């Protein structure tokens, strides 16, 4: 810790309050709090310095390269932020009547349309607040579809072993049973295992394509027909849409429902862990079940469609309309790019990934699924280096931090030992990519010449490797003042 906690600053008197102290309240005493909360009492300058300094302890896209597989850490254009923060947009109450909402609603309506076009779906709901909530909406819609058809036995969701953790967790949350199926050595799904897994209990399958293994599932049409023939539906996890934007679409591949991570493909900020936004798109047969509210266009303008207009909907998933501020950022981004710009996204994302993959392969790194074309990401395994030097994928990750590069995703997918999942995105220049390749080679060389130095990495961060075991065994989750009386 290089910056004290805000609570450790001395109380200062230089504060200005946003409002005057009101007269004594008429609230009955029985409802009032007797203790004071332990909030800081500091000046505005102290606050500004403290949080500015804290910000400087972070890596961020604005300061560092994040080749972080499956997370699509691309540049977040500044205009998206400043225009989404226009005072009228920030000040709009969620239940404001339509006459004070036409601007916002028109943006959201057009966003629904653009996402529909990009995914090849026939309806979109923007309400899910993150990818995992989009997944929940998707599985709930699949359940509603089967239920409407009196097909009550279908409670199994098929998930490949390489899937994101949220897929099985979502299926469980919806009350479904998870059936895991393996992936073949070439990175595609084991079709025989799929055939054996489907049946009258199959509600659906959740897939990412390109998969988390960084390759395009080539048998997708066959998979779609197997699952559909068995009476199940196909769910598309949109985490990897950046790889195919404008090239193909989940609709073309035969998917019935998709969720999109607007904070990945459509460049809304990750914000240090959220907010995300997980819009869902559906084919014709799932349209009645879309989560509400939706934006509709009528002769008199734009308005919301909710309970009355959508009686079969799976309902509301947030108090209001999801993360509108995030949706506006995605809208602005898509309008700036346009159709051509969106197609360029996948072209250059895939170009950058394949470039790094080829360079690292030439440099002697082991590429998982080496015979395959990389999508927007690919995997290397450092298992051989680990065996020979003791330097693990984790050590590579930590050492990269000292080169000013954020670590790639490590130890995911779980199938590939000592793996690093690398996704550069389209917004990085060749200079940045070459810097990463050089850093990887330098770390590999150091693994053989001076492994102890790597095990000590990172050395240039505000802290060195942290004791995670201690953190979990003796949880210290809340600051306690040295003198308890001080509360």
């Amino acid at each position, binding site marked *: *810790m290089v910056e004290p906690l805000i609570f450790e600053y001395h109380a200062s008197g230089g*504060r200005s309050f*946003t*409002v*005057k102290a*009101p007269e004594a309240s*008429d609230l*009955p005493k029985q409802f009032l*709090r007797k203790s004071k909360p332990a*909030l800081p009492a500091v000046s505005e300058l102290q*606050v500004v310095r403290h*949080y500015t300094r*804290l910000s400087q302890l*972070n*890596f961020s896209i*604005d300061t560092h390269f994040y080749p972080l597989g499956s997370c699509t850490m691309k540049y*977040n254009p500044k205009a998206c*932020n400043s*225009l989404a923060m*226009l005072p009228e947009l920030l000040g709009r*109450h969620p*239940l404001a*009547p339509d006459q004070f909402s036409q601007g916002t609603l*028109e943006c959201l309506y057009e966003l629904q*349309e653009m996402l529909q076009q990009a995914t090849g779906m026939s309806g979109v709901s923007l309400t899910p*607040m*993150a990818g*995992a909530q989009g997944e929940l909406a998707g599985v709930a819609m699949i359940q509603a579809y089967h239920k409407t058809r009196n097909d009550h036995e279908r409670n199994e969701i098929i998930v490949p072993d390489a899937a994101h*953790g*949220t897929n099985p967790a979502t299926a*469980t949350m919806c*009350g479904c049973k998870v059936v895991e199926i393996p992936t073949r050595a070439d990175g595609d799904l084991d079709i025989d295992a799929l055939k054996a897994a489907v049946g009258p209990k199959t509600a659906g399958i959740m897939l990412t394509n390109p998969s988390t293994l960084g390759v395009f599932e080539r048998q997708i049409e066959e998979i779609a027909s197997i699952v559909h023939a068995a009476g199940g539906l196909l769910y598309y996890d949109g985490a990897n849409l950046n790889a195919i934007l404008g*090239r193909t679409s989940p609709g073309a591949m035969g998917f019935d429902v998709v969720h999109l991570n607007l904070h990945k493909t459509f460049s809304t900020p990750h*914000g*240090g*862990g959220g*907010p995300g936004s997980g819009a869902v798109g559906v084919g014709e047969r799932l349209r009645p079940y879309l*989560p509400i509210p939706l934006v509709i266009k009528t002769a008199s303008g734009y308005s919301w469609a909710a309970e009355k207009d959508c009686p079969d909907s799976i309902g509301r*998933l947030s*108090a*209001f*309309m999801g993360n509108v501020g*995030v949706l506006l950022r995605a809208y602005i981004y898509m*309008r700036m790019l*346009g*159709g051509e710009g969106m197609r360029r996204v996948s072209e*250059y994302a895939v*170009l950058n990934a*394949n470039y790094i993959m*080829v360079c690292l392969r030439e440099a002697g790194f082991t590429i998982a699924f080496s015979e395959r*074309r990389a999508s927007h990401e690919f995997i290397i395994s450092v298992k051989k280096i680990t065996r020979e030097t003791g330097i693990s994928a984790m050590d590579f990750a930590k050492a990269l*931090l000292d080169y000013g590069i*954020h*670590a790639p995703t490590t130890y995911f997918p779980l199938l590939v030992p000592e793996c690093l999942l690398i996704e550069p995105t389209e917004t990085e220049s*060749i200079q940045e990519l070459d810097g990463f390749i050089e850093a990887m080679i330098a770390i590999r060389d150091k693994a053989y010449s001076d492994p102890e130095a790597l095990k000590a990495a990172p050395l240039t961060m505000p802290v*060195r490797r*942290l004791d995670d075991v201690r*953190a979990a065994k003796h*949880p210290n989750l*809340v600051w306690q003042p040295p003198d308890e009386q001080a509360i």
Partner: protein
Amino acid sequence: MPFIPHTSGDLSAMLKRIGAETLDDLFDEIPANLTMQAIPGAPEGMSESEISSLMHERAGTDGRPVCFMGAGAYDHFVPAAVWQLTTRGEFYSAYTPYQAEASQGTLQVIYEYQTMMASLTGLDISNASLYDGATAFAEACLMAVRANRKSTSRKILVPRTVHPYYREVAFNIIRGQNIELVDLPMLDGVTDVAALAEHAGQDFAAVVIQQPNFFGSLEQVDALTNWAHAEAALVIAVANPLALSVLEPPGEWGEAGADVACGEGQPLGVPMSSGGPFYGYMVCRKDIVRQMPGRIVGRTVDVDGKPGFTLTLQAREQHIRRSRATSNICTNQGLMVTASTIYMALLGNEGLRRVALASHENTRQLIEGLCAIHGITRAFTSPVFHEAVLLLDRPVAPVLDALAATGILGGVDLTEFYPELGNALLVCATENRTPKHIEQYVAAMTAVFTTEEVRQHG
């Protein structure tokens, strides 16, 4: 090319290195019949100045009416420092702090946030936040079912005074897990404590208490908490965190305090922004922390013994536990929490208390002004925080339309949510409403009622 830095020279050099002729070659594993040449119907791109004009125009269409609406989203003043700091690229464009060494800023902010929320609610442990108030409530219901060791019940008692959308969202999120939300009736705008007797001995996993409740009214939290605990049910508090700067915190309700508190963090420095992004907070007793969903930050030490922060207790989460996780939730609303932490640090206890009391006082003045109009009365006698229900002698919707025509958002029409209340209108005046705004509203309402009378009697 917008946001793509490659020159044509870069492109050819990179393709050559890869061994590909064209960009199209890089997509050769996609079956040809699945590919498209363009996104059908997609618009052409716009320059930054073009999109800027468009967005200003659209924002202008929405306008800036004077807001007397609440119902879960509140128009509080946010000091300039909050979002200037929050939108620094180092917070705004940072990833989830899984690489702790490169994320100490975000992690320390969350640790400070957890400390502030624990203190504000009077409970032990806070998580790093959930999506919004409604989903936090849904997650609290799931958590209570898991955490109640004295009961195997999957039923939860939910008063009708809880926000109707929260109840709907909770139902939608947890229905797959066979959990039943049982309605508890209301009397005079608060939970009917006498009606609890009917449920005695019926075995519930938890009882929910919203404070202040959807109507702005103050619930008898001590009596409700004690009843729930006597019935071996856990207590889930749904509380406006700003109000807790003044009101008794959930951790001190009744003899033993609430077990879990959750709610909407928006009042603490987050703009209304059409309802999101907001964040849901969740705080609980120490002994049930392992049932809590969502990310949690802990303080530990590095290899040199230097203090630092890291995500912890991750064995609860989906990326480790997969189908056996406490929730499918992956994200927290990191940026919104950053804003709230800065907001609370700037205002401190005294600042928060002033905002809460000023909002209460403005609402009191508004109610007084409006109830002086013939045809408007208070719906309930119970004390309120900064929202109240008014009964009109005529349908609410046309009245709100008439107010809107003068640039005033007069409140939320409750007719559809609670038909049993009649012509009920929920109004709210935060500290952001000036005496002039309130006068303006009362004058406009008076005009509406007078004109109507003239028309009716003329």
